[in-house]
Every structure is written in structure tokens, then in C-alpha cells.
């Protein structure tokens, strides 16, 4: 069951230090892992994204190709690319942890600078996760 996305589903920042293709890849990975993008969902074409965001189409094309290699996207001759089947809900635990690894590194760095203990930090995180449960 295919559905087409609103065009503006990504947030691309050309002036970020992170290359645009990598921003796109990271966002698609996260949205697939969280279930926000379901199998069969059609993605906008390279040209549509490039035009909508006013960015070079080569970078979008590169992102889509790499996501296809990862198995997250599927090319369909003559039709839009879709989220590949078999990617329902969350990835494996190590995969999901890897996706937030850079944020955790930043958090650990900040915590160390504030001389916080690992137990205090973990308790604080547990409290937050309890509070933000749907």
C-alpha cells in the first residue's frame, strides 16, 4: 500500500558542516527506525527534492543510492523510489544505539565537564524517558 510523502519531510541545512547527502541519509534512517516511514512509502524524486530545497541534485542522488545499498530504499523502474519492505518498526538494538551515538558522546563530554557521576546521569535519563513515554 503506497502513499506519497509531503515534499517537505526532510530538514536540510546546506551551511551545516555535515554534507547534505549525509543529513538526508541520517534522517531517512531515523524515520524508518521509528516507523515514521513505512515500507512501500514513495519518496519524492531526486529532482523534486533538489528543486524544493534549492540544492544540487547530485547530493540527493548520492543519498538515495547509498540508502539503496543499505537496503533501506528500493528502486522501482519507471516509478518513484520506495522504502524497502522488511523494514518495519525499529532496527536491532545495536543499530538503534548507533544512531544516537554522536548525541550520547556529546552528552558524556558535557557530563564529564560538569563532573557528574555516571549513576546520577543514568538516573536523570531514566526519569526523562519515563516522563516522555506516550
Amino acid at each position, binding site marked *: 500500500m503506497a502513499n506519497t510523502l509531503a515534499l517537505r519531510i526532510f530538514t536540510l541545512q546546506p*551551511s551545516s*558542516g555535515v554534507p547534505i547527502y549525509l543529513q538526508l541519509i541520517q534522517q531517512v534512517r531515523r524515520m524508518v527506525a521509528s516507523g515514521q516511514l513505512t515500507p512501500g512509502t514513495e519518496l519524492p524524486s531526486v529532482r523534486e527534492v*533538489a528543486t524544493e530545497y534549492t*540544492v*544540487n541534485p547530485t*547530493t540527493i542522488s548520492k543519498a538515495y543510492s547509498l540508502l539503496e545499498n543499505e537496503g533501506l530504499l528500493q528502486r522501482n523502474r519507471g516509478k518513484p523510489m520506495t522504502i524497502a519492505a522488511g523494514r518495519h518498526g525499529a532496527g536491532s538494538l545495536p543499530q538503534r544505539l548507533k544512531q544516537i551515538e554522536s548525541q550520547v*558522546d556529546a552528552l558524556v563530554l558535557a557530563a564529564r565537564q560538569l563532573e557528574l557521576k555516571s549513576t546520577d546521569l543514568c538516573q536523570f535519563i531514566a526519569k526523562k524517558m519515563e516522563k516522555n513515554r506516550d
Partner: protein
Amino acid sequence: MTESVVTTRGLGKTIGKKTILRNISVDVDAGSVVGIIGKNGAGKTTLLEILLGFSPASNGSAQLFGHDSFTLPAATKGRIGFVPQQDELVSLLTCRQQLALIAALHRHWNHALIERLLAAWEVPMDSLIQTLSGGERQKLSTLLALGHEPELLVLDEPVASLDPISRRQFLSEVIEISADHVRTVLFSSHIISDLERVADQIWIVRNGELAWAGPLDALKEAVVRLNISARRLLPSSLPLGNAISQQISGQRASAVVSHWNEEQLADLRRALDAEIEVEPLSLEDIFLEFHA
């Protein structure tokens, strides 16, 4: 195999005793959008002038579409469009008349395209050129280079006088032009955020040489800032092979490195016994670091 649109080998330019360009060797494939950045006086305009054949090289070679730049055949010249930094508009003509003049010089002219852009860019078609604002002049000057749909479009600071809306319209057009990977764009600009949108290759011209000539993505991945927080006092100089700059204070340090890759991180963490945050840099920050 893609045809190389621009090829230079050991290109140099000297005027009198002054060396303006030194040892420039690049290849540009069809379909690329090359963003060219550099301080004023670094040699950007001279490089473009030599590539286009307005000025001969002092040493080395420059070729466009396989032909020596300085002796381009007329047919090859027709494949090129150029927007110079100083426009060459004729004051006493109207915009329409100026466009008609240029259109007559080309065998192919896309009238529909020009009409669409004249309207979208709000160029006052029947006004005399001498009454145009700086921005309107720049827009007209750009249109003159787009009408014949050249395979190679060379732009020397084409948007310096344009407001953000006009600039964005212009960038959309550049993206449209490059979308089929057939037409090539060389785009020199100080507005680095524009280049981060449309360019896939970057040339950094510094003191007449190319400090970088390669993909924008690779540049952003290679040049990063390392924010270091160590568990013991750091040495007075960090064990980094490619540090562009470093600031060390006790157990904290910050260093900008080039040629970075993730594999270096683990070794560095161990060597310094430190937490290291890898901070990616915008193109503007990278440019500033290259000139620190």
C-alpha cells in the same frame, strides 16, 4: 566516459615580476557545478579569464572541450556563456534591445526561456539600461549568458548585487541547468552559503594556487575541528599530522585538522587519554581556517 570540459596542467600566469597563478592542474567533468572561492586578489578572475581565452597562460596549459583556451574555434566559443564581474551592457539600449543584439549573435536562442526569466526576475524589459539598478543590471547580464543554453556557463560573482529573493531564484535556475548532468557551471562567488547549495565541487584559490580542488562533501568530511578534553595535561603541541591550527590550554584543546578520517579518532583518544568531539565545519568556517 564523460568528456572533460575544462582541463588545466601546471597552469601559471605572471605579469611583470608578479606571479598571479602558480601550478594549477584541474579537470572538470560535464555536469559539475564548481564553486570558486578566494580572497580578493587571490587570482580567481585571472584564472577564469585564462580558461576562457581572454588572456594567455604564462606556463602550462588550459583547454576547454579539448581545445586550447587561447585559440578556441568559433564553434566552441558558441558552447560557452560568460557573466563577467563588470557587466558590458550598452547604456542607451533598452533591455529588450540588448537581448536582441546578443540573440542575433547566436545560432540557437531560447526565447521562451528568456521571456519566462525576464518576468520571473522582474527585469523591466523596455527600460533603458542606464536607468537600471545594480541588481537589475546583474540580472540582465546573466540572462545574456543563458539564452543560448551554453554547455559551459562561467559566472564571475554574478549575484553580488542581488537581494536574497533574487539570489534564490538565480540559484534555482543554476540547479535546473545542472540537473541533467550535461551542462557545466563554474561559479565564483563570495556568498559561500549559495555555493553550499548548488556546488558539488569547490576550488579554493589562495595566493594564486589551489588550496583545494575537489568535491564539497569530501572537503567538509576532511576538514573538522577537534574539541579535546583530556584527563591529564596535554603536550605543548598535539600529535596531529595535519593540524591547520591548534589552541591548547591545560587539559583542554581545540584543533582544526585537514585530511581527517574517523579511523584516527580511536588512536588519538588513547594517545591523549581524552574525550574528543569531532565538530564538522561550514564551508565559510573552512575558508576562514584556510586563511588563518
